[in-house]
């Protein structure tokens, strides 16, 4: 079988420069991850612990199978916003009693675990992942409900959360609520809409209205325990299926529930040899160019990611700016589309469309390795129909029904982002390397376009062109676009599922592929493959 060659020179200056740049970015990411783990800060963490409670990640750790991997999703959601980085909730994919599940755990140390607009989007994204991949959803509930000052952004769209829960259930995807603390008002519908509920004795509080609200509404005097204690719900209302004596017991019961879900994956699972790549994944740090304008060969990346560095390239001599081929990761067969020299021409577009159709025909998931500045522009290309050819590619991406995974390893600009399965094209998972960028176009190009348009407009009106103002505008625009195209900015807005360390690429994609195989892996049928 064809094996990718090792062409990386770790001793070279380029490698060293790239690596240094990547490590710098990684340090920045690590710092933000530490912030996210710190939750609401030492004071609130201490207070939470003093009550004998576990932190959300401690709860997750006890729920997981020992030594099983856990992929935290969107860990840096809400970065750079008015909200705590992490968005007061931890989500991820992990294994309980051998069953891959989606976890959603409120972080009660951050404003009582209340939901802000970013938390809502993060939970929504986790729920999508549960649905699309048919993974049981486990909610670890302790939340004060909506962050009231932002209710206008949450209340109406946030209703989706409860609908999602019951629709998951209707689709045969189990939902479990482990209630550790407050789960009140709207939040009460999390246990309310779940298939299984466990409540921690003397801790869980699940009611529509607490004592003050009841007093205001009806004049009735009542206590927390009477209105929504675990004891009451387990013995009287029946909202709790199990009452746990403490948090550990609650997590034990959660594991017990999953053990009996009788879960079976619908996908074929790993079928290929899952041997490690031949080359050191640590070298991935030095491959991606620090300067996005310098193209690099995605085969050097694949050589450090795919099983045994084996890669059967498809159509290697045609449309060489896009590398396509077959391989496997952790034994899961995979088709890869990877930008090589940035630009997508007609040949690349047609090659992509054909390759996507082939993957659908054989029910093999696709990986898009993004490093594109977009489709080619210019008179000749337009006249030769670059729009039609790009449209074929976007058509194929849009209507393909095999699972798609997307990883931005450099640039993802313009319609190239669409053709290479950007967020709007619903890949099952989308990750980015720390230095990756994405925007409608590069900052200089965008500022330049604005400047040319302004200059033309001034000319048309016969007015003098203010060069100083233009320079200031260009600098400001460049700065804004640069900021908004950064991985951190995009991950904060849930435009990806997380920024990953390049060295973890194989593991992250392995976890994603395993999740994907929990659902059926089935391609689009109906037409023969169009030969381009």
């Amino acid at each position, binding site marked *: 079988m064809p094996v990718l060659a090792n062409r990386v020179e770790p001793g070279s200056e380029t490698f060293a420069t790239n690596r240094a740049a990547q490590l710098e970015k990684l340090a920045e990411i690590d710092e933000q*991850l530490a912030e*996210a*783990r710190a939750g609401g800060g030492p004071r609130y963490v201490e207070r939470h612990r003093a009550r004998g409670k576990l*932190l959300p*990640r*401690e709860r997750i*750790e*006890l729920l997981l*199978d*020992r*030594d*099983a*991997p*856990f*992929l*935290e999703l969107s*860990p840096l959601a809400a970065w750079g916003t008015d909200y705590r980085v992490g968005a007061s909730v931890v989500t991820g994919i992990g294994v309980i009693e051998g069953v891959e599940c989606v976890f959603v755990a409120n972080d009660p140390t951050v404003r009582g675990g209340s939901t802000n607009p970013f938390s809502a989007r993060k939970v929504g994204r986790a729920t999508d992942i549960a649905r699309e991949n048919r993974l049981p959803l486990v909610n670890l509930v302790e939340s004060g409900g909506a962050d009231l000052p932002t209710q206008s952004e949450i209340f109406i769209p946030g209703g989706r959360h409860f609908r999602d829960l019951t629709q998951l259930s209707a689709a045969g995807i189990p939902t479990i609520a482990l209630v550790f603390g407050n789960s009140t008002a709207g939040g009460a519908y999390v246990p309310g809409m779940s298939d299984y509920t466990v409540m921690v004795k003397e801790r869980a509080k699940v009611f529509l209205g607490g004592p003050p609200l009841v007093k205001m509404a009806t004049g009735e005097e009542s206590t927390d325990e009477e209105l929504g204690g675990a004891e009451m719900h387990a*013995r*009287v209302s029946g909202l709790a299926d199990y*009452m*746990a*004596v*403490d948090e*550990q*017991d609650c*997590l*034990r019961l959660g*594991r017990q529930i999953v053990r009996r879900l009788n879960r079976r994956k619908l996908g074929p699972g*790993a079928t290929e040899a*899952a041997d490690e790549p031949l080359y050191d994944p*640590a070298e991935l740090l030095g491959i991606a160019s620090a300067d996005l304008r310098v193209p690099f060969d995605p085969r050097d990346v694949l050589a450090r990611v795919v099983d045994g560095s084996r890669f059967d390239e498809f159509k290697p001599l045609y449309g060489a700016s896009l590398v396509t081929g077959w391989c496997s990761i*952790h*034994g899961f067969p995979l088709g890869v589309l990877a930008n090589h020299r940035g630009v997508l021409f007609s040949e690349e577009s047609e090659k992509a469309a054909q390759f996507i159709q082939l993957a659908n025909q054989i029910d093999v998931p696709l990986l898009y390795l993004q490093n594109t500045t977009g489709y080619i522009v210019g008179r000749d290309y337009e006249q030769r129909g670059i729009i039609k050819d790009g449209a074929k590619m976007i058509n194929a991406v849009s209507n393909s029904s095999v699972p798609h995974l997307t990883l931005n390893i450099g640039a993802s600009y313009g319609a190239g982002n669409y053709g290479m399965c950007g967020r709007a094209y619903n890949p099952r998972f989308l990750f980015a390397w720390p230095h990756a960028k994405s925007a409608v176009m590069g900052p200089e190009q965008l500022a330049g376009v604005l400047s040319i348009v302004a200059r033309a407009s001034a000319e048309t009106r016969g007015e003098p062109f203010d060069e100083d103002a233009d320079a200031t505008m260009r600098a400001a625009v460049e700065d804004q676009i640069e900021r908004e195209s950064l991985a951190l900015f995009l991950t904060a807005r849930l435009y990806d599922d*997380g920024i*990953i*360390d390049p*060295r*973890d690429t194989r*593991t*992250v994609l*392995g*976890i994603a592929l*395993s999740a994907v195989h929990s659902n059926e892996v089935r391609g689009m049928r109906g037409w023969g493959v169009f030969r381009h």
Partner: protein
Amino acid sequence: MTIRKLLVANRGEIARRIFRTCRALGISTVAVYAEPDAAAPFVHEADEAVAIDGYLRDEAIVAAAARTGADAIHPGYGFLAESPAFARRCRDAGIVWIGPAAETIEAVGDKVAAKELAARVGVPVLPSEGFPLLVKAAAGGGGRGMRVVRDERELSAAVAAAEREASSSFGDGRVFRERLVEGARHVEVQVLGDAHGHVVHLFGRECSVQRRWQKVIEEAPVVDERLHEAAVALAREIGYVGAGTIEFLLAPDGAFFFLEANARLQVEHPVTEEVTGLDLVSLQIRIAEGEPLDVAPAATGHAIEARLYAEDPALGYLPSTGRIARFEIDGVRVDSGVEVGSVVTSHYDPLLAKLVAHAPTRVEAIRKLAGALRRARVHGVTTNRDQLLAVLTHPAFAAGEIDTTFLDRVQIPRVDARLHAAAAALAAQAARRRGHTLPSGWRNNPSQRQRTAYEGYDVDYRLAREGLELEVNGERIDALLVSCTPGVVELEVDGVRRRFEVSRADGVAWVDSSLGSARLRELPRFREADLLEAEGSLVAPMPGTVVRVDAEPGEEVEAGQTLVVVEAMKMEHVIAAPHAARVAEVRVAAGEQVDGGRVLVVLEEVR
């Protein structure tokens, strides 16, 4: 007569030992076994096996011999070997008895009579006056019925206690007194006598390392002409036919005294076999067949035996039971009664195996045995291995400065099992990850390490990209994980690489390394909390009327005892104690209406 089929009226290692010789001689074998031994190796190894309801059942054993057509019975060592009644029963049934005549057994079995005999042939015996002294059972053995008396005042009480114990252990309450020689060694001489009047000695055995009069380490040869001559003289006087042992006490001043004679094969016979190159069981059979002895005893080198017991010296030699998960001993002769999968029960003697090393010199033999013990992998039960090693590596032992109280002075080094615990946790991790290709415990946002808790050791580890992160009991350990499989973990600490061999059974990890061995009980990840039992509250199963209250506060109740009866929908529901407890509160009275879930009775633990 020629023996063709031999029944061993014993179990465990000695049964296997005798079968081995039988196989070499072409003699068919019959085992008898009691129910707990149904799956024991000695039963499988015999050509035929007959179930009996206890090893001391003379009649059943002789019947088994008849049923299988066995023409000889070997009693091994122990109770039956010293039973003249059994020897007689065999003879009466026309079965060859591998051992001295019943009359000989009787003559030496009575220690008082044996002493008189010794004195008669001029062998020194211990005086029965003066203090300190020992009170011993006349029919005794194995330290039972034995008492040390340091002065006159203790004497009558000690005699009474020894008599009681002797009476219950041996059915013979007679005791006698013997001067206690402090700092003495215990040496015994192996003798063989044939039906033609030949008696030879096969040198002495050093058996001073004992605990509670149970030998632990034995050596051969002890070459002391005085003892050899005395032993042979005694055996001749008795007209000894078969293999036997004459035991002596060797005082620090060089004086020796006759102690007792054992008319049987000894547990420690292999050391003599190793230095003489003879097969004592084979010689016993030849003698029983009436063949003349043609043995010219010569000893080469030095042999040493260690008895590996399933017991914990640190806990007062508490016997340990369990299933043998691993049993690997090599480099020395191993006479064992168990193998992997064997279940060690509390029914029988806890001896697992005898390890016997033979080398040109004593120093080499000790080193060889210690090496084999160190490398031995015995998992599933706690053993005295560390104590044996402590003896073998003790400078006083090396110098030969031992007496019968030596073992009490040997300190067993406490193994610092932090690395063992780490290795056990890592091996268990590898076992859990078997068949998975994704990295163990991988996190993209790591917040804590993986934890495995053993009794006394909390292990936190993470297999990070940079390598192993390890903490034991909250303390960071700089260790490099060289390799890791479910059975073997290699760790490098301070530049030294060590191999830890791990097996797991029933929640216990057994770990061996050059740092010693450790037994680690794993603590469960979750407490199995039974809600009601945790609280002790018994509640009404549904709404109804209390018909009867049978519990009173303060009362101690047994599991299953009725406490309250509630009637609902014409059905009577009995609320019973789920376990033995004391009634702390009774919250209802007969005739009362109760809601479902209402607490009726609260129980508390009886302390």
